[in-house]
């Protein structure tokens, strides 16, 4: 069973439905005990980093995620959920993240010119290193992105990037901890394949 963590940040309907569509058992939960007993964890998220990390702390999931990660439980962060896995974010101030991955989150608009922010739409991957999460995905696959901040200085865990003025980290991962900046649950068949890959690895 996959626990989809509900900490009040974002609409979980599509994510939960896409797993159901794939025949994968999942449960939306805000209960830390329930998450602790799940086989895998998905950390979704839409909204602001500072608010999100406060809420994760408040429901006891911040510490739990760190201990589950060290026990080897597969964790997938999506969009803001991916950003929360890193050490720090400079989204409207300075906020500590979970620190499961090395790297920091910065505003996109400071680093690109003549491109619209948010980076919103379908973008293609450039593969940085091969990984089991990519077993069913390739460089010609497009995924759906919506974000205004992005990860930097995260070479250690970089799996794939998407070109948008800069190389935007699109898939990151280290050991059992993964993250996608795009929304696999909104990326058509390719997104579903990636979710399935995570669910079955």
């Amino acid at each position, binding site marked *: 069973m996959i626990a989809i963590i509900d900490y009040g940040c974002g*609409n979980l*309907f*599509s994510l939960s*439905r*896409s797993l*159901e*569509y794939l025949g994968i058992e999942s449960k939306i939960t805000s209960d830390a005990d329930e998450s602790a007993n799940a086989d895998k964890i998905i950390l979704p998220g*839409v*909204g602001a980093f500072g608010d999100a990390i406060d809420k994760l702390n408040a429901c006891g999931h911040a510490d739990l995620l760190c201990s589950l990660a060290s026990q080897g439980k597969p964790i997938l962060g999506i969009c803001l959920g991916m950003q929360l896995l890193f050490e720090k974010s400079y989204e409207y101030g300075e906020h500590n993240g979970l620190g499961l991955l090395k790297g920091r989150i910065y505003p996109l608009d400071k680093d690109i010119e003549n491109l*619209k922010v*948010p*980076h*919103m*739409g*379908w*973008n*293609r991957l450039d593969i940085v290193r091969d990984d089991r999460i990519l077993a069913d995905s390739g460089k010609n696959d*497009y995924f*759906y*992105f*919506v974000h205004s901040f992005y990860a930097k200085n995260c070479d250690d865990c970089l799996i794939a990037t998407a*070109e*948008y003025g800069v190389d935007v980290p699109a898939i990151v991962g280290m050991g059992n901890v993964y993250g996608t900046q795009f929304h696999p*649950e*909104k*990326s*058509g068949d390719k*997104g*579903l394949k990636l979710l399935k890959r995570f669910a079955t690895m």
Partner: protein
Amino acid sequence: MITKRIIPCLDVRDGRVVKGVNFEGIKDVASPVDMAKFYNESGADELVFYDITASHEGRALFTDILRQTASEVFIPLTVGGGINSIDDFDRVLKCGADKVSVNSGAIKNPSLISEAAKKYGDQCVVLSMDIKRVDGSFHVFQNGGRIDTGKDALEWAVFGQKNGAGELVVNSIDTDGVKNGFDIEMLKAISELVTIPVIASGGAGCKEDFLELFNADCADAGLAASIFHFKQVNIKELKTYLRNNNIEMRI
């Protein structure tokens, strides 16, 4: 780099697609769910559902349809029609919509744009505008393009962006239904004033019209209804054609 987008629009009345005829390979040509699945498989980048229902019963049917579609189609869904309040945003977002498009509701209550943007984020709020030329300037029309608000469309577009709209749909009443190409002049005038994505609507008749649109660099997406419904243009072929003409497309 992000792709240009091709977006079919489904007008739904009382739970059924209006004008959804002439389809092969679909059991129920008026079922929004079946049509949505068909378009998803054809490579549509996004879907727009427009609720043109007047009654409460019809509205309940619409949200039900939306939930069913969002349960089976995993690409971005935009919903419009009858959005007048934050409660309306809430209602459709809970059913699986990703973006909500406001039109007359924002004209009646302009603060709806900023309130919704604050609550759900800019990326969620689409300002849809029906525009027609009146005495040499672009006017915003409301109630399905029937009433001239007297509002200047360029000012309204800028106001929308400033108040948190994450995208604009520019529907030209002058070219709508004519099938002689998008309103490039109108789209240029607006896209030069804003930095948010512009979705062009009204006037597409053939695949060359989309190439003209994207080459003119005045829109991020092309939206159409009947030419897709009537299979005058096949989305897969359209996207291949555009990609062969150096327009970045997701295929």
